[in-house]
């Protein structure tokens, strides 16, 4: 599926919709008219840049010192796959996504949602409020808060000292771990909300019947709850992954991708190539790869939804 195709002929073909046309109503062309502003905006500012992305990824466009860019074919891509910094960024993106989205946000979100069903109301409200606040905060603010938390002089080390545990400079020694935790802190609320909604849909009789039959908490979770919410799990995993793939501000604020590229995920690598190294063409090739991976996840997400649009 391409982003442009379905838009372009919208409203131009009035004829064949006639059978479903309501008796009293304007013609198909007029009916589609209200779509125009949205379609124009989407075409110009979303589909346009994506198409342009396909174009400049195959050029050697630079910010400076070049009169004209020229077509270089797949050079940017072959270059990427031979570039250690790029492969490092791919690896870190994988680590970041698996740690923060698959393991962190997803599991913690499910655990919180499950615990909330049993907890007392004040505790439930309090925890929910705190977790959601972390989610609603602007990205950059969240970045600063966790920067403060993980710095050498920060809260985490203060706690570790107090517990007589070894402290260290987290943002320097394990930056990818620190930014992954930051992303868990910021993003878990979404999973929590999705899973709370999903768990609410499970009929009480089923779990109660299992309980009377003597199934313990874990077994009920494993054999009844998880299978019943597996579609929510799928869509949630996709949503988390897509959001994690596009995290920029959080990492930028905390580490700038450093030190020495040790927390440089693909969006930061793309930015560095395009602007610090002035290689727009190369940066865009990376962007295109990111976009393709994202589209793939997005398609899986669509399939999982199997929506009755």
């Amino acid at each position, binding site marked *: 599926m391409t982003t442009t195709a*379905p838009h372009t002929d919208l409203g131009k073909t009035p004829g064949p919709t006639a059978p479903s046309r309501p008796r009293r109503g304007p013609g198909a062309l007029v009916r589609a008219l209200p779509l125009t502003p949205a379609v124009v905006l989407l075409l110009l500012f979303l589909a346009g840049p994506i198409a342009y992305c396909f174009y400049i990824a195959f050029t050697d466009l630079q910010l400076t010192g070049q009169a004209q860019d020229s077509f270089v074919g797949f050079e940017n891509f072959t270059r990427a796959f031979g570039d250690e910094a790029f492969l490092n960024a791919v690896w870190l993106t994988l680590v970041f996504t698996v740690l923060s989205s698959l393991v962190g946000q997803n599991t913690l979100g499910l655990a919180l949602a499950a615990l909330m069903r049993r907890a007392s109301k004040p505790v439930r409200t309090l925890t929910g409020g705190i977790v959601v606040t972390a989610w609603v905060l602007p990205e950059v603010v969240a970045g600063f808060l966790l920067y403060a938390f993980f710095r050498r002089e920060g809260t985490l080390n203060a706690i570790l000292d107090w517990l007589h545990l070894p402290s260290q400079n987290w943002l320097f020694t394990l930056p990818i771990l620190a930014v992954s935790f930051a992303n868990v802190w910021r993003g878990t609320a979404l999973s929590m909300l999705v899973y709370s909604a999903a768990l609410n849909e499970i009929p009480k009789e089923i779990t109660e019947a299992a309980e009377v039959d003597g199934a313990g908490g874990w077994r009920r979770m494993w054999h009844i709850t998880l299978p019943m919410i597996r579609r929510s799990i799928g869509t949630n995993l996709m949503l988390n992954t897509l959001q994690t793939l596009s995290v920029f501000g959080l990492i930028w604020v905390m580490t700038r991708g450093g030190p020495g590229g040790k927390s440089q995920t693909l969006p930061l690598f793309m930015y560095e190539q395009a602007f610090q190294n002035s290689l727009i063409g190369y940066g865009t090739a990376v962007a295109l790869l990111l976009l393709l991976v994202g589209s793939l996840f997005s398609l899986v997400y669509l399939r999982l939804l199997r929506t009755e649009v």
Partner: protein
Amino acid sequence: MAVTLASRRTTRRLAADAGLLVVAAAFVLPLAWVVLSSLDPHADLRVKAPDGLTSDNFDAILTSDITFTPLLNSLVLCGSATLLTVICAALAAYPLTRFRSRFNRPFLLTILFATSLPITAIMVPVYALFVQVDLIDTMHGTVFFFAASQLPFAIWLMKNFMDGVPRELEEAAWTDGASSLQSLIRIVLPLMGPGVAVVTVFSFVMMWGNFFVPFMLLLTPDQMPASVSINDFFGNRGMVAYGQLAAFSIVYSTPVILLYVLIARRLGGGFALGGAVKG
């Protein structure tokens, strides 16, 4: 039997409470830092009880340079983009809910697909394109892109709310000779007021917190919204005034938190999700 079941329930509730409180404690630490530091005359990077309470940090940042101009920029930028988004989304949702057409399904699928595209990925080509067409470093260019990036989700959400408005009233209005536009404005939108409010607030909150888009598309310092200008606290001046940074973070975050609280009940569990997950 009943007694043991009841006591088992109590134990489980206590265990659940304990588990949640541990997570809550871990999550609250960074939040506690920002609140405590903003009131602390000697704030540093760790959570600690303030050495006496002060409003100095707030006094120091509440100047036009540091706070008011960036917040006003944020307001203009996100306000206009939200307005544009909501108008376009409402118009677009109308034919999608009211008329059947073989284009609806592909259009909605495309919209849903675009909703989850990583917009971050296209910021470099957007920058290059904006340089080409001379939209770089302009407020209106940024507003257009913001609106476009938020539109897929807004249309999707708006359509789901609009689906809930019964058609009968409109059909009556049509018989009386009202045009579609009139029935949209006079009948449908007022009936789905809360839905429109959710789309508006949600779009605004998303843009207010967005860093990368204005960071890429705006260059002139006095056009910067708060999401980017907050970086200045880490400027070239060496020492960071953490108390002031914390105070600014609070001033900048408060509007979106309040707005979120306002619509949270209506968003309910999974909001668009409310639309998307219901599947």
